[in-house]
Each structure stands twice: as C-alpha cells, then as structure tokens.
C-alpha cells in the first residue's frame, strides 16, 4: 500500500489548547479507495477530515495528497472537496448556482457551464431541479446537491462528513447504495466520516476505527468484524460476548484456554495483524479475553453430539425479532448473560419461554482471543 498511497497521513497530531484531539495518527489511503473513519463522537474523526480539507492546521506531522505536502496549502487550493454534515447549501442561490459555484475560476462559456450542471443533475438523479430554490429541497435532495457541487470540480479526493446522518433510516439505506455506486462510477477516492458502524461496514473498502484521537485498528470490514484486535474495537463493531480467560497452553493446533463460564476451550492462532510478525500466541498463564459473536453461538435443547465445543445454560430472557431471535443465556460461573442470535430459518430453534436447560455450541475457529483490557 505504501508505494501507491494517494493520501498519506504521517504522524499527525492536533492540539486544541491543551486538549489533544489527534494523537500520532498515520494512515495511507489508496487511489480510488472508499475509506471510512469510524468512531464515537469526540474521537477525532471529524478533526482529521477537517485537517485533510485544510480547515484545521496540523500541530505535528504532515499530510500528503498525491505526493504533495499540504501544510502550506490553504483550503481553496487543495485538490479535495467536501460534503458537509449539514450540507452547507448556499441558501441565497438556486440549485444551478449552488452546483456551479466552484466553476467561476474555470471561465467557461455560459452554455458549457449550463451543460455541466445538467450533467451533474442527471448523475444525482435530480434532472430539471436547476431553478429550485435552496429552501424548497428535502434533506435527501440537499445531500445530493452538496455531492454534485463537489463532484463537478472533479476533485482527486471527496471528503464526506457524516453526510447521511440527517436522513431518516429508509432514505439513508437508499443513499448508501447510491453513494457506493456513485463512487465506483466516478472512481475518485472517498474519505467518509461516520459514527454508524453498520454504514461503515456496508460502504467501505477499509475502515480506521478511532477513539480518543488514536487509530485503534485499520482493516477491511470483514477483518474488523471477524478478527478485532482489542476489546474496544470488538465491542464498538457489532455485539460481542466477552469471557475472562487464562491461557493454559499454546500449540500448533491453537491456543488452549480456561474461560469463565465456558470451561476448557480452544481458539485458533492468528497473525498479530498486517506488518507484525506471525504471533506465537500469548504465554501460558496470561490473562486474556475470549470473544464470540452472538450469531456464532448455536442454541439447542439437547446436548450436541460429536464432541463439539459446548456448554450448558439456561435462557433468562428472549426476544422474537421476526427474521431472527435474540436469547440471553445464564451460564454457571459467569456474572453476565451471554447473547445468542439465531436465524429463524426453520422456525424458532427453541421456545422463547423455555425454562429447561439449553446447550450452547460453537466452532473453535470463531473464537477470538484479545488482550486483557
């Protein structure tokens, strides 16, 4: 990746007074990539985006875009355009003048400019909207105008600051698909800021999960979900069951652990992540966290045969959600409940009002071992 990095964020820091908003962040983003910055509010993702746009200066480190250092380049000279969180549509201009705003310097003939605006309106599926006033637009339309206004300038990078946050759920899901299709059509690099993990997983090629100004993990959506590297990422992305555990041995077959509530279990040995040497696994006796996703646990009314990894418990509460059901299971020796998510493909696997014993089973390959937090 480093050889062809299009945006290169190197050891960037940002202080607001004494508060450190960005703490030594380094990220390489490739050409044409859909890259997301994901985190809760206040994690520094928007600050980082505003630094790419040039609205905030870096306190340390350097940002390169297309090989050029950006420190001394003001916002209006940068090869990036931004879609603002509230869209920042110019309220005193109509749709056509909003979209054509950035074309003043291009000194185009009136007819040519008109043509370009019509093309953009076509692209964002709002043909014939040119004469509408800014205050006659719905949220979804404003979002598209903001996109068109940026894309008409053919930027090398498009920055998007929670552009779907203000839309209702249905419109948001529709716009996610359109945004992804649009990114493939225009082929430019998108840097997308969101606090919505589902949105980030749906849209992105790669995601940087941020917290307290640092990058916790930078990975593909699958990588983040299946092999989170620490407890914070694991609990931020989706739902995760955690178990205190102690390593009893490491071998070629994987890691042997003694986990609270689960007993003796086995977990696969994984790489430490890109860039690090293959992990030889935690030392015997080390305290770790074992994590299993709710949908990787299987619930049955009878003990599973064939020596599969399993444990006995009791359903404490359950919720029927239509396509799936959620169960919360009490295990001996564990002070919190274990969440199980079961698809209702052939009916509810067990009654949601069941009072008798149940068995949880899982594939050892889906067990994730995390450092103790």
């Amino acid at each position, binding site marked *: 990746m480093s050889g062809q990095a299009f945006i290169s964020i190197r050891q960037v820091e940002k202080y607001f007074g004494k508060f450190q908003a960005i703490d030594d962040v380094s990220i390489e983003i490739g050409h044409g990539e859909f890259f997301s910055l994901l985190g809760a509010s206040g994690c520094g993702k928007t600050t980082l985006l505003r630094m790419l746009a040039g609205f905030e200066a870096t306190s340390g480190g350097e940002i390169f875009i297309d090989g050029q250092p950006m420190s001394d380049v003001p916002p*209006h000279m940068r090869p990036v355009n931004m879609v603002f969180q*509230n869209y920042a549509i110019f*309220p005193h201009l109509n749709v056509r003048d909003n979209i054509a705003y950035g074309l003043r310097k291009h000194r185009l003939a009136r007819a040519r400019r008109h043509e370009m605006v019509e093309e953009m309106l076509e692209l964002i599926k709002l043909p014939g909207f040119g004469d509408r006033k800014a205050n006659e637009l719905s949220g979804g339309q404003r979002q598209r105008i903001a996109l068109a206004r940026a894309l008409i300038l053919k930027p090398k990078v498009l920055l998007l600051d929670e552009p779907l946050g203000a839309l209702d759920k249905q419109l948001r899901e529709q716009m996610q698909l359109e945004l992804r299709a649009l990114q493939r059509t225009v082929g430019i690099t998108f840097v997308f800021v969101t606090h919505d993990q589902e949105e980030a997983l749906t849209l992105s090629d790669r995601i940087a999960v941020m917290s307290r100004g640092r990058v916790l993990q930078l990975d593909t959506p699958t990588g983040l979900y299946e092999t989170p590297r620490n407890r914070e990422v694991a609990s931020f992305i989706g739902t995760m069951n955690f178990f205190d555990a102690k390593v009893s041995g490491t071998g070629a077959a994987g890691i042997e652990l003694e986990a609270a509530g689960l007993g003796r279990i086995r977990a696969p040995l994984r790489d430490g992540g890109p860039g690090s040497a293959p992990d030889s696994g935690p030392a015997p006796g080390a305290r770790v966290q074992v994590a299993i996703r709710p949908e990787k646990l299987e619930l049955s009314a009878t003990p599973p045969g064939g020596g599969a990894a399993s444990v006995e418990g009791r359903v404490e509460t359950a919720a029927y959600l239509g396509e799936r059901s959620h169960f919360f299971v009490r295990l001996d020796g564990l002070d919190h409940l274990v969440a199980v998510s079961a698809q209702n493909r052939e009916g509810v696997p067990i009654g949601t009002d069941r009072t008798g014993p149940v068995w949880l089973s899982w594939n050892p390959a889906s067990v994730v071992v995390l450092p103790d937090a």
Partner: protein
Amino acid sequence: MSSDSYIKRKNRPLQVYAVIFLIVLYVPVLFLPLFSFNDSLYVRFPLKGFTWQWYGELFEREPVWSALMNSIKIGAAVSVLSTAMGVFAAKAITRYRIPGRGPLVGFIMLPLVVPLIIFGVALLVLLSQLGVPLSLYTVALGHMIICLPFAVATLIPRFEGFDKSIEEASADLGENAWWTFWRVTLPMVLPGVIASLMLTFTVSFDEFILAFFLSGTQPTLPMYIWGQLRFPQEFPSILALASMIIAMSFIVVFIGMWINRGASFGAVKGDET
C-alpha cells in the same frame, strides 16, 4: 388548549398595565401632530379647527430646505460609513478568535450609555486644538461615534445567525477569503446591512447634541428646530416639521426591521431537513 396552559394563560391586570404603559409612552408624542393641524398659534385646548397652513408655510421657507439637505447629506454619509465599518467589525467579532473580545464589544457599545454632551465637549476641544474648522464634516465625525454601535448591534446577530460551514464550503469550492465575502457572506447578511443603513440614517438625522457642539455655520434640521423655538409665531410650523420627522423615522425604522425580520434565517434554513 394552549391558550389556557400555565405559561400562556391570560393575566388581565398585566394586560391593562401594558396598555397604560404604551399610552403614557406615546400620547405626548401624539400631541405634536394633533396641534400641528390646529388652526391657532397657541398650543392649548380646545382645538380651534383643521388647517394645512403650518405645513404649507414650511415648504416656502428656504432655511428649512437647506437644513434638511444638510441632515440628509450627513445621514447618508454616516449611514454608509458606519454600516461598512459595522460589517467588518461584526465579521471580526463573530468569526475570529480575538483576545479581549468582550471588552472590545463593550467599547464599541459604550457611546450608547455615555452622555453625548461628554463626547461633544471632548471632540470640540480636540478639533479646536487640531485647528480643524467646524463644518458638516465634523458633525458627521461625531455621528459616526453614535451610529457605529447601532450598526454593530444590528449586524452581529446576522453574522451569528448563519452557519460558518457555509463560508467553509465556499473556501472548499475554491474561493479565497475575498471572493467568499462577496459571493457568500455579504449576500447572507444583506438584510442586516439594509436595516443598519436605515437605522443609522435615522439616528444621525435625529441627533441634536453632537450637531450642536460640532456644526459650523450650516445647521442640521434638529438644530434649525431648536433655533426656531425662540419665535412663538413659528411654533406651529415646528410642530408640523416635528410631526413629519416622527412619521418618517417610524416608517424608515419599521421598514428596516421588517427587512431584517428573523435575523437567524440562514441558520434555520441550513438546518432544515
């Protein structure tokens, strides 16, 4: 439902109080137009009869016209200058992190509460020390001091009322600070600018104390009125003149406030979904 809720319920004594308050505030002023149409030299009841005579006399008097022109010239120059300075001050105050912003705004607003006679005397001393002859220019200079706070107070809510991300969007789309100001900032605050022009014009037009200290041989309209009070036979014409000034001031300020209604319209529209 809402009309008898706890907050919105009616309170008869307070309503009566409010009406009495407005009467006490404005009835004295209403005596001016009332007596300006009275067919008598003396301001006393009972009224004699209706006449346009006093208004007619005004139009035949050359000094009234020249005083009016003096006031208009000063008012026009002062309103344009103080509004232009107000735009820059309001932008600086609302957009940049200025050390000592609070005291700075306080100093701009101070002339509203300091007795004008103090500014009048101070400016007179300063100008005579510098050897500057008193003229319409010196009156305009004095009026700048009292008009700037009005301009700034009118414009600050306009600047605060629209989201700074709209200016950032302009920069992001390739426009530098100069073009952003002309293409985005100024159009957005335009209603405030018009309101400020009208308000500062009326403030300058009506001002007497500074004009009294700082004018040379050419009087402004309020000074002319003051000068004519010595002549009892002129008094009804002065009432007619004062009535017209009140009517014009009211209309100008009302139009200004109407244009500037909803100072936060930019923000409201920006957040609309």
